[in-house]
């Protein structure tokens, strides 16, 4: 299991990041149901039963990390390790070398840099502990908050898709995909805050 290659929990200056458990689903489901959060998510959580069912159906729990502030779950990170695109003859060289990440935080705890702090630590763990070569993150293009987090993480916009994604409102809207290579991350200056000893 990919997550086993990381030593949990991850700690930053203010936060703890660890694999989510079923016991976290109440708190995470409540956060996902908030209107400000759900508009950007793949599906509305609906009832708590709906949420639990969806998490199970799509095997999402193993890709979910709980983020705690003073032992309170304030949000989650998403981590999905995938293989890179490769010509068939060299597919082995692309196996499990990429990670897609995402985040969803309680609006009550926004504005303090928590998502960026937690995601930056996840980026470090992906490059240093998992040894992936590339990290991507996707969002609706209008999700300014998430796009700003991507930029703070040093990610570049690689794709701006025009009217690519069907939002539950019925409108086809733009999406963005940002990416960061391990080489770029290693070469970048990073603030000391949030880094592990």
């Amino acid at each position, binding site marked *: 299991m990919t997550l086993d290659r990381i030593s949990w929990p991850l700690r930053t200056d203010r936060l703890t990041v660890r694999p989510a458990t079923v016991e976290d689903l109440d708190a995470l489901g409540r956060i996902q149901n908030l209107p400000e959060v759900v508009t950007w998510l793949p*599906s*509305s959580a609906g009832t708590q039963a709906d949420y639990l069912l969806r998490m199970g159906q799509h095997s999402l729990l193993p890709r979910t990390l709980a983020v705690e502030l003073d032992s309170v779950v304030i949000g989650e990170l998403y981590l999905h390790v995938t293989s*890179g695109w490769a*010509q*068939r003859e060299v*597919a082995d060289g692309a196996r499990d070398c990429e990670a897609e990440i995402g985040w969803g935080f309680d609006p009550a705890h926004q504005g303090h840099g928590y998502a960026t702090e937690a995601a930056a630590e996840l980026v470090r763990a992906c490059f240093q502990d998992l040894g992936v070569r590339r990290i991507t993150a996707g969002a609706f293009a209008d999700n300014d908050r998430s796009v700003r987090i991507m930029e703070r993480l040093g990610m570049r916009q690689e794709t701006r898709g*025009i009217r690519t994604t069907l*939002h539950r409102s019925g409108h086809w809207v733009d999406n963005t995909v940002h990416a960061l290579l391990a080489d770029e991350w290693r070469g970048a200056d990073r603030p000391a805050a949030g880094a592990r000893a």
Partner: protein
Amino acid sequence: MGDTEDAPKPFDRVAWPVRTARLLLRPVTPDDFPRLYEIRAIPEVTHWLTGRPTSYDDYVARYGTPERLDSTLVVEAGDTIVGDLFLALVTPYAQVEVRDRAVHSEAAVGWLLDPAFTGRGYATEAVAEVVRICFEDLGVRRVVASAFADNTASLRVMERVGLRIEGRTRGGSLHRELGWVDGVEAALLAQEWVAKPR
């Protein structure tokens, strides 16, 4: 959950063969395999392709599947097969509540041409026609294609048929000889498409 839709057969909705000014397009049949394998055995052709058949049997095993037969078109100029085309319906990302409306609303296309027949505009002519088929006959709302960024011949075809480059992945594609190199993703919306006179 997963995909529970039946495998789409878009070719059933098109009246074949389709003719352009100089070419004929039609679904592949097993009789075409020897000629198509011959084209794919040319190193110049497979340099940019996802796979390089190791033998005729390998080619037939990979390209003779029902899924491949339902997504491969042959391009003829006169009596000669000059290349083949890929056309498959795809479902883009949609929020779950409206996913039904997004199912198979897009088409992914690809092309390859025997180098002996390049330089005449055949690829542009064939791909432009495939784009028309996608929008007019299949009613998709978006057509997508991708390529290695250094595949300038393919990028030129994309430009000529109106496919916009939406994404450029830095070192995002592993090439068997070149290592990790850039890739491009292109798209064209039905709303943007302008049919060229034939």
